[in-house]
């Protein structure tokens, strides 16, 4: 069966199915998984009326959901049939530098590239993939290039719960249904550059207002990915509380009950939804107003509540859900006393530490295996979601308030005129790793820097050649 057919089914039905373009090695050995992804221009009907000229992976929007298991040896055979260079960045996965799909490894039009990596044990979680060419990430994602990655663990404590994947994105269309990408000097272009590009149409898995059904009393596991360039989602399910169980890097120790949850750009959350409604109820999943903007470019509609999808209760009689395990997954604390450096990152609009991205510059040089604390200060009256490639970190505090629980993260939303600190260990993989604001317009503008992780035996030689 082709990957296309299976993933289209998946998109329609909102139900996760296993990856198809793979072949399993005999049991007990490392499973080898091969995937073929092709990025190409395509034409899809997203809005009523004319079809839209887009870019897509394997002709699908969003791209096929890739499902791996911890320990899998993955090879992604990528072919770029776009008229411009691109990459595939495996957002959040801990993998070799050459497979990170960062701007250092562009794939020219017509060329192929093999992304080769092993899914590391303990990394089960929800990830995603998207292009990361310099200056064109926002454009290519707006054109439709992104997809979800799900990594499963053999000992998943929530195994057996019904799962729903919810990839949220937004877009904006011109009168002819083409994707609205204004000239950078126009007022709309200035607003896009400032806020990050937002669209008035919000998609869930490529569909507007899909329906998820639930049986009264049932417990479902939702994996939510914010794939928007700039829009953040303050999620609420009226009449329900949410059990927050997982973050960017997967499950954490204990569920946290919340009324609402903020999902910033590129962040993922895993939620347990308890069917506390009555048979036949319809409840919208809503995005509540959230003011992340500077006043100059704050949209007039910022304080509108948006409905994202409908949760439809079936008519069947209520059931009772099985109890949750006491511990979902331990997250051992990175030891702050082992930290050998504190990296201060001062965010201003479009810049980090007063500088814009330069491929030839290394902003932070660190030794492989080192543990460090990053302190991000945001001097702008606008939230900036800060993403580090390659390594999952643990947020220590935000605005000086200790984080309520320990979790693996690769994006931390740094609130306007606020700060955040995280601790990270450069466990494996020397190389050059990007860190940047994940508002795509800011990233493309150059609000990005480079962390070079250097192997011990090379570290001294390298640092000697670098001017202080």
């Amino acid at each position, binding site marked *: 069966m082709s990957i296309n057919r299976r993933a289209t089914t998946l998109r329609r039905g909102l139900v996760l199915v296993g990856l198809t373009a793979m072949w399993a090695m005999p049991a007990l050995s490392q499973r080898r998984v091969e995937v073929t992804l092709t990025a190409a221009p395509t034409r899809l009907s997203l809005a009523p009326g004319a079809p839209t000229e887009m870019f897509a992976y394997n002709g699908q929007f969003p791209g096929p959901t890739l499902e791996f298991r911890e320990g899998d040896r993955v090879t992604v055979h990528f072919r770029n049939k776009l008229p411009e260079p691109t990459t595939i960045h495996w957002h959040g996965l801990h993998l070799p530098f050459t497979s990170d799909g960062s701007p250092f490894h562009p794939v020219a039009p017509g060329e192929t590239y093999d992304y080769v990596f092993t899914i590391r044990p303990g990394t089960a979680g929800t990830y995603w993939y998207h292009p990361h060419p310099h200056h064109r990430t926002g454009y290519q994602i707006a054109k439709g290039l992104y997809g979800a990655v799900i990594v499963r663990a053999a000992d998943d404590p929530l195994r057996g719960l019904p799962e729903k994947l919810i990839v949220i994105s937004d877009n904006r269309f011109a009168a002819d249904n083409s994707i609205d990408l204004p000239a950078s000097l126009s*007022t709309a272009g200035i607003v896009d550059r400032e806020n990050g590009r937002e669209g008035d149409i919000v998609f869930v898995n490529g569909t507007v207002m899909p329906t998820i059904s639930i049986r009264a009393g049932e417990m479902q596991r939702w994996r939510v990915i914010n794939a928007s360039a700039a829009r953040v989602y303050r999620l609420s399910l009226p009449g329900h509380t949410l059990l927050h169980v997982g973050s960017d890097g997967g499950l954490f120790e204990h569920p946290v009950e919340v009324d609402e949850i903020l999902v910033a750009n590129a962040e993922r959350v895993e939620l347990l939804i308890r069917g506390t409604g009555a048979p036949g109820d319809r409840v919208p999943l809503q995005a509540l107003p959230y003011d992340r903007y500077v006043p*100059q470019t704050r949209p007039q509609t910022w304080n509108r509540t948006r409905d994202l999808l409908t949760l439809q209760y079936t008519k069947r009689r209520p059931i009772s859900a099985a109890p949750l395990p006491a511990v979902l997954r331990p997250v051992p604390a990175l030891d702050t006393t082992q930290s050998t450096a504190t990296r201060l990152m001062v965010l201003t609009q479009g810049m980090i530490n007063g500088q814009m991205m330069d491929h030839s510059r290394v902003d932070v040089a660190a030794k492989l295996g080192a543990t460090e604390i990053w302190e991000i200060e945001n001097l702008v009256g606008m939230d900036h979601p800060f993403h580090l490639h390659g390594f999952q970190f643990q947020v220590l505090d935000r605005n000086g308030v200790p984080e309520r629980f320990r979790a693996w993260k690769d994006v931390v939303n740094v609130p306007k005129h606020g700060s955040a600190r995280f601790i990270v260990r450069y466990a494996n993989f020397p190389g050059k790793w990007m860190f940047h604001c994940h508002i795509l317009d800011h990233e493309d503008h150059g609000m990005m820097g480079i962390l070079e992780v250097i192997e011990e035996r090379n570290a001294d030689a390298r640092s000697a050649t670098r001017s202080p």
Partner: protein
Amino acid sequence: MKGIRLIYRKEDIVGSQRTRSRSAPVVLGLVVVAALAGSFFVSLGVDDASASLAADEQVMRGRTLVIHHACGDCHGGGSNPNADGWLVGARDTSQEFKIGPFRTRPRNLTPDNMTGLGRFSERQIFNALRYGLRPGETPDVDITSTTPGQGNFPAHPKYLAVPMPWPAFRHMSDQDLRDVAAYLKRGVKPVSNRVADSEGPPDFWASAYTVDKIGPYPAAAFPAARERTAP
């Protein structure tokens, strides 16, 4: 006067002479070592002192400029550096400005890292006063042009909110502006006071600060249209 007399007490001078005469070689040696060491340290000390004295003079000049340019009238404290709220920015809505549909607010000018100027360089403060460019939105570079996109002037400039009178302040000398920056960064205690962002048009006041509205920089040569050379 009493103190001076004490320092030059005759007995002390005599006593030291006596000491030297008692163990001359050792003391002489010590004196030589002390003199050598002393000259080294003293010369360093003098350099340091003159540098810090110059810095202090710069800060003091900046202080005078800040006081007589009435920065505190909007940013807090009036003309009195002793006043509560000296340069800490707006603390309540009575200190806001209503500019058309927008509300603008005087910012915290104390060198607090998160809420004030602490993370901005003196060059960024200079660029704010000379070119009206918001320090948080402008790269920390030397600017050599007033044409957007040229000489490091941002292609999409974001200006300080109205009514910050930078179009007048920009005519101060380079030295004056550097002195003001030096005072704000080094002569004022940091105070944490988070001021809500000013509102404004999406072009960040670029349409308000055109040459026909604020005049050229540098100012037109004397005598300009409304000036004369003799009474």
